């Protein structure tokens, strides 16, 4: 249609006369070909990518056996064998044949099994004994044979950070699940503290500031000390921050439920005294991280730490700008709201989590990151592009048109850091695909990385003006935010937790529980996402056609039901995760006996010494 031409002419006009056009009207697009619009096709393609990857993981597991049979080394061996036969002289062949003749005529005596001979593992090579050596369903997962000796204080702190995060995850998603049910049964309760409007920010803030933030910081402490090859600058500050952040979320939750609300701007619903607690915690954490890097015992700053420091610093600025009142009357508040809610996601969760991937992914694969430079490129473009795109939450709103255009243009620009990051992670994984079926950590990473590409690219498409016609204000937004905050951030955080906790505590979770956690979370997320995407699209089309509003409520009902089903699976998976967390941290093996290595003397940490129990090598 002419729509695209029309947009171009509009864009051209707006570029030159920004003042005249602040509230220019735009006609409805022709929706008869809505399926063919680039934004929609792009989104569908991206979703298909995730499905393909999921199928891929499954087939990889199934085909691991067959590929082994056909592997090249096998063929090479045969050729080698043939060549050796040709080179042999006659006496050699005779010896071999004689040996073979004896072997063939050998007969068992009948009492080999069930004899009284004692089984002896004299070299300590048996790690586990199983009665079902060939599990018909899934590959036996590799145990993680190395444990990383970590100072007790650091270990304790990381455990407590992640522990608090696990609590907020279960609490926050319980609230989310309850909210999801309210779409189906709005009369579930009539208690003011549990009403939808008040609980919605409780859910979002608990999973943002409680779950994701605390888990990120906890995991970050390990990265920052490990990659700086030094001890943490101050444990005390870290503990203060823990208390401040947790009390901020706890008090904030109570305030929101009692109706004390900063003004409903998403992710800054806590009133400023409560947010201040969190902000002080952030400042302490930033100072602590910064000083740790400043005291690093190696020359270079590992790329992870760029992201960790950047994320912390940017977020502190962001929170200050978000809460200062001087420019927030009238639509000033709305400009800041778009900026704040998008940067909360982009500069804090995404940036920090990327930093975590740059350490935990290569270390789980036991190989270096594919490209340091790509990581650096992604860092600077993340800062440049992400900062500018907040207003894409207010396309067609009364905010200045030039601001909306900047947001849309740079939303497309976000593809640069996203592609750079994804390439880097996938190229790091390349050559290790068979590891996926043998590890319980890597599937989480793979899903997280794929969603990083899919969720971010889909977000760029969603910022276009045509897609805004259909999707803005609908449940599609909710699907998108779960695809990113859950599909990217939460899956990556799980991967990191499963990667590091067993290594510092020496206790591995039960594989079947991790597997159930993974598949329930993944299938649940998919049901959640797809139902709201389809429903949101239908809702938007019904609005464009000018149907009565209530019809869009009625048509959403089956999709809300599917969302609740998906949400239930996700919630159950969180309970499994909580169980796994307690399993990994409870009843730990005592720290190793070498007093030199124990404690803050980090220079000797890399010393290899024998573990008296099972003679694995401990780093």
């Amino acid at each position, binding site marked *: 249609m002419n729509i695209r031409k029309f947009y171009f002419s509009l864009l051209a006009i707006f570029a030159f006369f920004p003042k005249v056009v602040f509230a220019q009207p735009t006609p409805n697009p022709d929706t008869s070909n809505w399926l063919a619009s680039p934004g929609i096709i792009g989104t569908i393609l991206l979703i298909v990518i995730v499905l393909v990857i999921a199928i891929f993981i499954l087939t990889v597991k199934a085909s691991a056996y067959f590929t082994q049979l056909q592997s090249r080394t096998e063929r090479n061996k045969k050729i080698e064998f043939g060549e050796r036969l040709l080179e042999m002289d006659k006496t050699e062949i005779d010896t071999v044949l004689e040996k073979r003749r004896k072997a063939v005529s050998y007969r068992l005596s009948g009492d080999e099994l069930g004899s009284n001979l004692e089984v002896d593992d004299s070299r300590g090579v048996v790690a586990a004994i199983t009665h079902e050596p060939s599990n018909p369903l899934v590959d036996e997962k590799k145990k993680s044979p190395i444990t990383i000796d970590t100072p007790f204080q650091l270990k304790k702190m990381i455990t407590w950070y992640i522990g608090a995060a696990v609590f907020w995850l279960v609490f926050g998603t319980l609230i989310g699940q309850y909210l999801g049910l309210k779409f189906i049964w709005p009369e579930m309760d009539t208690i003011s503290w549990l009403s939808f409007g008040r609980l919605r920010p409780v859910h979002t803030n608990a999973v943002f500031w409680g779950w994701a933030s605390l888990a990120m910081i906890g995991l970050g402490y390990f990265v920052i000390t490990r990659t700086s090859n030094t001890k943490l600058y101050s444990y005390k500050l870290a503990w203060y921050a823990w208390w401040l952040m947790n009390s901020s979320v706890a008090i904030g939750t109570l305030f929101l439920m009692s109706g*004390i*609300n900063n003004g*409903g701007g998403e992710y800054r619903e806590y009133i400023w005294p409560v947010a201040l607690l969190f902000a002080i915690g952030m400042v302490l954490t930033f100072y602590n991280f910064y000083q740790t890097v400043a005291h690093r015992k190696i020359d270079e700053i590992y790329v992870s730490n760029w992201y960790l420091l*950047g994320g912390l610093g940017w977020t502190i600025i962001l929170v200050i700008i978000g809460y200062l009142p001087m420019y927030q009357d009238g639509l*000033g508040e709305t400009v800041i709201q778009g*900026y704040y809610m998008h940067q909360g996601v982009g500069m804090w969760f995404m940036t920090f989590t990327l930093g975590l991937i740059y350490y935990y992914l290569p270390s789980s694969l036991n190989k270096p990151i594919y490209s340091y430079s790509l990581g650096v490129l992604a860092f600077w473009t993340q800062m440049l592009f992400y900062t500018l795109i907040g207003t894409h939450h207010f396309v067609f709103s009364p905010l200045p048109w030039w601001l909306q255009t900047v947001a849309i243009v740079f939303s497309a620009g976000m593809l640069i850091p996203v592609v750079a990051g994804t390439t880097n992670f996938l190229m790091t994984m390349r050559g290790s695909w068979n590891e996926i079926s043998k590890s319980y950590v890597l599937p989480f990473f793979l899903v997280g990385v794929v969603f990083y590409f899919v969720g971010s690219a889909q977000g760029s498409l969603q910022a276009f003006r045509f897609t805004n016609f259909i999707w803005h204000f609908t449940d599609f937004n909710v699907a998108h935010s779960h695809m990113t905050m859950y599909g990217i951030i939460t899956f990556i955080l799980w991967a990191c937790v499963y990667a590091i906790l067993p290594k510092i505590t020496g206790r591995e979770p039960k594989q079947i529980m991790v597997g159930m956690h993974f598949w329930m979370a993944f299938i649940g997320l998919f049901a959640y996402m797809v139902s709201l995407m389809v429903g949101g699209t239908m809702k938007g089309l019904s609005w464009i056609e000018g149907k009565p509003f209530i019809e869009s409520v009625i048509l959403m009902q089956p999709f809300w039901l599917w969302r609740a089903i998906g949400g239930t699976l996700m919630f159950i998976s969180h309970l499994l995760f909580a169980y796994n967390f307690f399993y990994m941290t409870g009843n730990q093996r005592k720290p190793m006996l070498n007093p030199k290595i124990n404690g803050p003397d980090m220079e000797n940490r890399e010393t290899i010494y024998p573990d008296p129990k099972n003679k694995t090598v401990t780093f």
Partner: protein
Amino acid sequence: MLDFHKNHKLLVGTALFGFLMLSTFVALVPAFQIQQTQPLPSMETFSEEELKGLHIYVQENCMSCHTQQVRNIEMDNTWGKRPSIPSDYYYSKQRQDLWRQSPSLLGSERTGPDLTNVGQRQSGMDWHLLHLYNPRIVVKESIMPSYPWLFDIKEESKIRDTDHLVPVPQEFLNSSTKKVVASQKALDLVAYLQSLKQAEMPKNSSVSFIPSSKENESVDDSGEELLPDGENLYMNNCAACHQADGSGLSGAFPPLAGSTIVNDENPETLIRIIMEGYDARPEYGVMAGFQETLSDEEITAIVNHERSSWGNAADAVTIDEVKEIRSFVNSLK
């Protein structure tokens, strides 16, 4: 020089400075600028009651489901007669108090209808009170929460003259001897909702919607002017009170099915009620007029829908009849 990977001061300093500059450009400067916007001359400040109502609106976080922005695209014409402009928010988006900032009224989700113009669309106080007490009294499929804590349940004997009774149907009450009384909070909130009307633009302003390309085509195809869909218009404007099946709500809103006024051979009373509103029968709530919000074509379509549905079988009216009545109504002013 650019040894970011070895110099942590340079790295962190550059990252923070860059972010601060970008934030200034994309957030601080536009926010300061747009804050200078002045209100329209036709806008009024909030009464004390309405302002309290706004704060209850924020306290219950109504913004999580209701937007207050009419976008400048034609599909949003349902929610207001013109696109929202920055001036519209001059009074409503002021800092609330020391602890709480300017409310985020524009919203990001339209799980419920947009409320920019709800005072125009839904002006009846009884409707709002019933709807807040339990939305499903008036809209069966609604998924909005009930707000019973904004109401008192009182024994019939204890009700004072100053109390505002809410005509809640018996099936939504547990006890037959008790009545629902609106608390001051509920009255404040309703006062705020009733105040939500788009202010008149000064003349010679250019803020308007371009009609959708799709509708133009349909007119071209048939060669004659088509009336809009009366059922849709009825659902959007009338069904909240009179219900989708025209049955009304006893004690609050009269039925249209079988109504003598609707079925009257002469449609004048019906059309005048739609235009001017109605408050002649004490057993029912007050209806506000729609002459500002509905065009002649729309009123014709709605009237014809009402006169031909739910067992009603009166003759269709023409657009000329409606035009005539409108000019008569205007001449009364």
